[in-house]
């Protein structure tokens, strides 16, 4: 079987290589197996690694270039996206504004008004409260904060002294900055909440008026389905409905076809949004032949294409002469989509209302209490499920434990836990009431069962009420509407008597609600006016309308509409379930905003000011000097100290440091782990503990100890002095751009970094499946071969992605340099470096010196911080996107 399947493959292999794997396998028994000589495997291993590294570096470089392109594209897209997004948002809000009535429209100004109107007390008061707080905040403080931020003042503030006279008080610009940014963040948050609020209001509105929305969608689907009929009926000089504007479609639908306002609006919206797009642009100038060839080629695919892409630009290009065809194909697709949308609509609002869940729960309760005897048995563990589980039946009068009883009810009726709890509580209450009378078991049982019967009756009545209110009424109304439209001859005389008589007749004789009666009157009015009192014509039009209500009745029966938004308690409970993400993420997000995003924005802003020694915290203003000083690299490297020159020099050292610090730790850590985890080594735990000791102790202690150990007065130097007669300035040597201190920093960093890698690699080594080695041994692989082919790939695969985090961590590794070299490193302030930088300083250390020293060049520090940030963010984004585990996250779980 397998041979058959692989035959083709093997044939191909045989052609290319004479000894296929199959033959090699067969030959094992005959020939003596010679393991590969070690130098060959070593050479191949090295070659392999080098090649892989090269490929990785190459692809990484390509990724970098791609990433740069992507960033440019992203920036453009983001800018365009903001505008387009805002446009869509406004358009949507305009639509919502049109859809809802005035009380909901109030929600655009007073958040939560719409929710309160729909008796959504919780949402309403929350939105309202937030709005009040926000408005108060903005009126009292926020507006001022933002105004201050825009006009960062260089002028001192003049304050009138209490005793008389004035005093120049420096304005507190750093406070202005902080509060301004905080206010901006609050405004953005409020804007998001505003959008959420409007959406919540609209959702509520749609639930309450679900019948109308549902109908509007069904109507739209109907019109699209019967597009051709509709377009034929439109005025003669207009060929297609699509030629009309939205307003015209709206009027047409409402006046001529008698659709409700919402339906007409929705249909015209669909046309405006979708059908209009299909109208082909006249591309008359294109070569006819070319078009024809394309058309022949794509003829078969045309239907598919239309359905698939809903009139792509290509299609518009290919079929400029075939508007009918395109529209026809598109209409079919659109109608299908419209029907789907209707279903989605129902599904969406099923989640947000109590109709189904209420009915389901009530029906469960009724079912349970309907089988009163079974429930009674379950309470006393006399039911079959309990018997089969080996639970002893409880005698009458024994104390029933609530938890156990609930479990038995779940088992007996196979209902969810929360339902069982509800049922059990009620059942136990009636049981204890029966027990209180002190009667014998039979009597008590009778009483309890009677009580169960009563409970069932109560619930049945509730269900009936509920269905009557939210389920049956719309169906009856819809049927009555259809009937009213069909009774033209009967109603015509009431029409002449005026709207009051007409509507009251409808209300009394047909059982319509006053609103629906008004609607019918309006339709009569339009129809009679539109047909100029031509009786046959009027009946025809009204019949169409009645037809819609027939189909509407059908659709309600299929998907009952609900009209009752979820209650407050349930909405709170959702935060433990569907909305658990919100409850879980809120506090971490707030924390991140305060601790990271707020400072980030403030720092970016500081980069655009002139906050330095000359312009103190109180007297800085908007300026770009920071950027120009740091990035004016080429203009001022000649001899004199400049920020640009310093930046380039320290950036070079930072990158060298990050590469060395990362890879020395990584490689040494893996080697150490391999040594420790050698199978024959004993006392692994002791060795590991000794190594781990250097990371178990806080870093500032170990690093300070190292600093002192290697300092000029320390024991190492005095030992060198007494024994060899010289000493080494480990951390203060200035020669060769402070080469010795730099190397020492990397070495000491190994001391505190290698154990981390060792620990995690040890864990990974233990996880490598043993049978991999077994099979390798059978294949004759030596220890080295096993290391190269099994261990290393596994370890590198698992730990590789963490390298980027380590790399970025090392770029920002402040501690090592700070504690080993201190803030006064070698060559501090020497010629090409500015006074705040030393040769051993990483960019972050320089940043620290800039901020804490005398100069306090916050603007330059911010610019440098942003530069570091940009480099790190770019690198990690590139690598992050390369990680397979990110790409197929779902597949991993």
């Amino acid at each position, binding site marked *: 079987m397998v041979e058959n399947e692989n035959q083709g493959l093997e044939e191909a292999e045989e052609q290319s290589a004479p000894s296929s794997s199959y033959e090699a396998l067969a030959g094992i028994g005959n020939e003596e197996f010679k393991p590969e000589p070690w130098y060959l495997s070593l050479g191949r291993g090295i070659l392999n690694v080098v090649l892989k590294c090269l490929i990785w570096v190459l692809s990484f470089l390509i990724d970098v270039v791609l990433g740069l392109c992507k960033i440019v594209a992203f920036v453009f897209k983001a800018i365009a996206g903001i505008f387009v997004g805002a446009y869509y948002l406004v358009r949507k809000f305009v639509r919502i504004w049109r859809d809802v009535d005035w009380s909901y429209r109030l929600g655009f100004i007073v958040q939560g008004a719409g929710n309160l109107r729909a008796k959504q007390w919780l949402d309403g008061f929350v939105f309202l409260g937030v709005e009040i707080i926000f408005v108060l905040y903005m009126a009292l403080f926020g507006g001022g904060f933002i105004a201050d931020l825009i006009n960062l003042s260089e002028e001192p503030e003049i304050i009138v002294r209490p005793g008389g006279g004035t005093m120049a008080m420096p304005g507190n610009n750093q*406070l202005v900055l*902080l509060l301004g940014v905080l206010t901006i963040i609050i405004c953005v948050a409020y804007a998001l909440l505003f959008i959420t609020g409007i959406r919540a209001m609209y959702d509520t509105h749609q639930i309450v008026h679900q019948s109308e929305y549902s109908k509007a969608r069904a109507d739209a689907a109907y019109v699209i389905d019967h597009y051709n009929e509709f377009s034929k009926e439109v005025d003669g000089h207009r060929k297609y409905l699509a030629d009309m504007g939205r307003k015209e479609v709206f009027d047409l639908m409402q006046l001529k076809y008698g659709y409700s306002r919402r339906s007409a609006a929705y249909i015209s919206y669909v046309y405006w949004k979708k059908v209009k797009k299909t109208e082909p642009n006249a591309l008359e100038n294109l070569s006819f032949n070319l078009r024809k060839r394309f058309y022949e080629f794509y003829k078969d695919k045309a239907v598919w294409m239309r359905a698939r892409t809903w009139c792509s630009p290509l299609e518009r290009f290919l079929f400029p002469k075939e508007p009918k065809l395109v529209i026809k194909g598109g209409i079919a697709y659109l109608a299908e989509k419209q029907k789907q949308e209707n279903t989605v609509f129902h599904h969406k609002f099923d989640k947000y209302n109590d109709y189904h869940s209420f009915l389901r729960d009530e029906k469960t309760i009724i079912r349970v209490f309907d089988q009163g005897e079974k429930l009674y048995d379950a309470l006393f563990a006399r039911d079959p499920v309990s018997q089969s589980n080996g639970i002893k039946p409880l005698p009458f009068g024994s104390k029933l434990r609530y938890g156990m009883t609930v479990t038995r009810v779940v088992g007996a009726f196979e209902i*969810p*836990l*929360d339902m069982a709890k509800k049922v059990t509580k009620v059942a136990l209450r009636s049981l204890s009431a029966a027990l209180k009378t002190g009667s014998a078991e039979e009597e008590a049982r009778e009483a309890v069962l009677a009580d169960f019967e009563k409970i069932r009756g109560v619930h049945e009545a509730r269900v009936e009420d509920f269905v009557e209110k939210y389920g049956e009424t719309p169906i009856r109304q819809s049927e009555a509407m259809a009937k009213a439209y069909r009774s033209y001859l009967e109603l015509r005389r009431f029409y002449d008597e005026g709207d009051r008589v007409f509507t009251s007749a409808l209300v009394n004789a047909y059982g319509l609600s006053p609103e629906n009666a008004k609607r019918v009157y309006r339709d009569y009015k339009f129809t009679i006016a539109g047909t100029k009192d031509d009786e046959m014509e009027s009946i025809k039009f009204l019949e169409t309308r009645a037809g819609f209500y027939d189909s509407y009745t059908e659709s309600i029966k299929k998907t009952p509409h609900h009209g009752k938004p979820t209650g407050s308690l349930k909405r709170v409970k959702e935060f*433990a*379930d569907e909305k*658990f993400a919100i409850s879980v993420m809120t506090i*971490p*997000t707030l*924390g*991140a905003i*305060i*601790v*990271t*995003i707020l*400072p*980030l924005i*403030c*720092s970016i802003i500081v980069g655009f000011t002139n906050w330095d020694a000359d312009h103190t915290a109180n007297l800085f203003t908007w300026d770009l000097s920071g950027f120009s000083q740091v990035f004016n690299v080429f203009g001022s490297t000649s001899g004199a100290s400049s920020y640009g020159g310093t930046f380039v020099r320290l950036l070079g050292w930072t990158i060298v440091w990050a590469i060395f610090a990362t890879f020395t730790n990584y490689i040494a850590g893996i080697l150490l782990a391999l*040594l*420790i985890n*050698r199978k*024959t*080594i004993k006392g692994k735990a002791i*060795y590991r*503990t000794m*190594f*781990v*000791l*250097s990371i178990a*102790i*806080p*870093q500032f*202690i*170990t690093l*300070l*100890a190292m600093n002192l*150990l290697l300092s000029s*007065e*320390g*024991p190492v130097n005095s030992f060198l002095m007494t024994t060899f007669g010289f000493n080494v300035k480990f951390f203060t040597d200035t020669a060769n751009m402070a080469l010795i201190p730099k190397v020492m920093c990397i070495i000491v960093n190994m*001391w505190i970094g290698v154990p981390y890698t060792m620990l995690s690699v040890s*864990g*990974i080594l233990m*996880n490598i499946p043993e049978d991999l080695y077994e099979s390798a041994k059978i294949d004759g692989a030596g220890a080295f071969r096993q290391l190269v082919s099994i261990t290393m790939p596994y370890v590198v695969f*698992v730990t590789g992605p963490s390298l980027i985090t380590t790399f970025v961590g090392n770029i*920002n590794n*402040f501690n090592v340099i700070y504690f080993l070299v201190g803030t006064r490193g070698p060559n501090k302030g020497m010629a090409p470096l500015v006074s705040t930088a030393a040769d051993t300083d990483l960019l*972050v250390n320089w940043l620290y010196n800039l*901020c804490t020293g005398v100069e306090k060049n916050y603007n330059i520090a911010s610019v440098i*911080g942003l530069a*570091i*940030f940009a480099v790190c*963010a770019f690198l*990690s*984004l590139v690598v*992050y996107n390369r990680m*397979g585990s990110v790409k197929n996250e779902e597949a*991993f779980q």
Partner: protein
Amino acid sequence: MKARRIIGDIVVYIILTILAVIWVLPIVWLVLQSFSARGYGGASSFIPTEFWFGNYAGLATNAVVSINGSTASSMYNFFGYVENGTLYLGAFVNTLLIALFCMVIATIMTLATAYAFSRLRFKARTGFMRVILILGMFPGFLSLIIMYWFMDTIGIRQTIWSLIIIYSGGAGMGYYISKGFFDTISKQIDEAAMIDGATRFQIFYKIIMPLSKPIVVYTALTAFMSPWGEYITASYVLGSANVEKTNWTVAILLNNMLAVEDGRRGKYWGQFCAGAVIVAIPVAIVFLCMQRYYVSGVTGGAVKG
């Protein structure tokens, strides 16, 4: 073959032993020096010439004690003291409080974030993850300056509360390893529980948490250790000259012991070493005991990258 293995073993033993000695030597030196009677100038020998317990005693009484028994005025407040019936907390107690608070807050936040990213599917989830990845690249020190103003504005500058907020505020952003661990737990467990009617909260609390002991321990451990030995933030927020030393943490206190005084460095050298040993012992013990969890936490979480 066997001879080769034995030779290999011996070589590995020798290498490991040499490395281990190198690794432990500075720490041994530090411990030995904590019994040194002399200042740093006398530390040129590896083993102190005289052994003396006065450094530890001095820490307990907040006094600089010299070898001839004379006691200087109260200098450094390590464990706290009582003055006029008021208890002043020392640096050690402060640090312990900060670390414990951070441990609780940060662990909850990290695990919650990791759980949300691993198990819950919500809008903008990947967007959140990317934003967090990028935000993590921002040099912490710049944020620190602005956090300092912020703490100033809300009036808790130079208290341990400001440190607790700064340390644990962004804890949710370090969710990676925990998320990796949660990813390894089969999703079918969730689904089964959901069918039984458990809410997401119940799944998190009653099912995932008991299964994730290593990662809880690991998270708590790192959340405790990082504020315990942190210097830069603490010194920037609490360490300015005008603040009372009652709010200091051990890192500031010990670093200040090495400051230049009377023209020379390390007047309190012995006391620095003693303090360092006392600070290091609890975390070292915790870390060594919890090593197992640390390894399984890191590797369990790292498998997914």
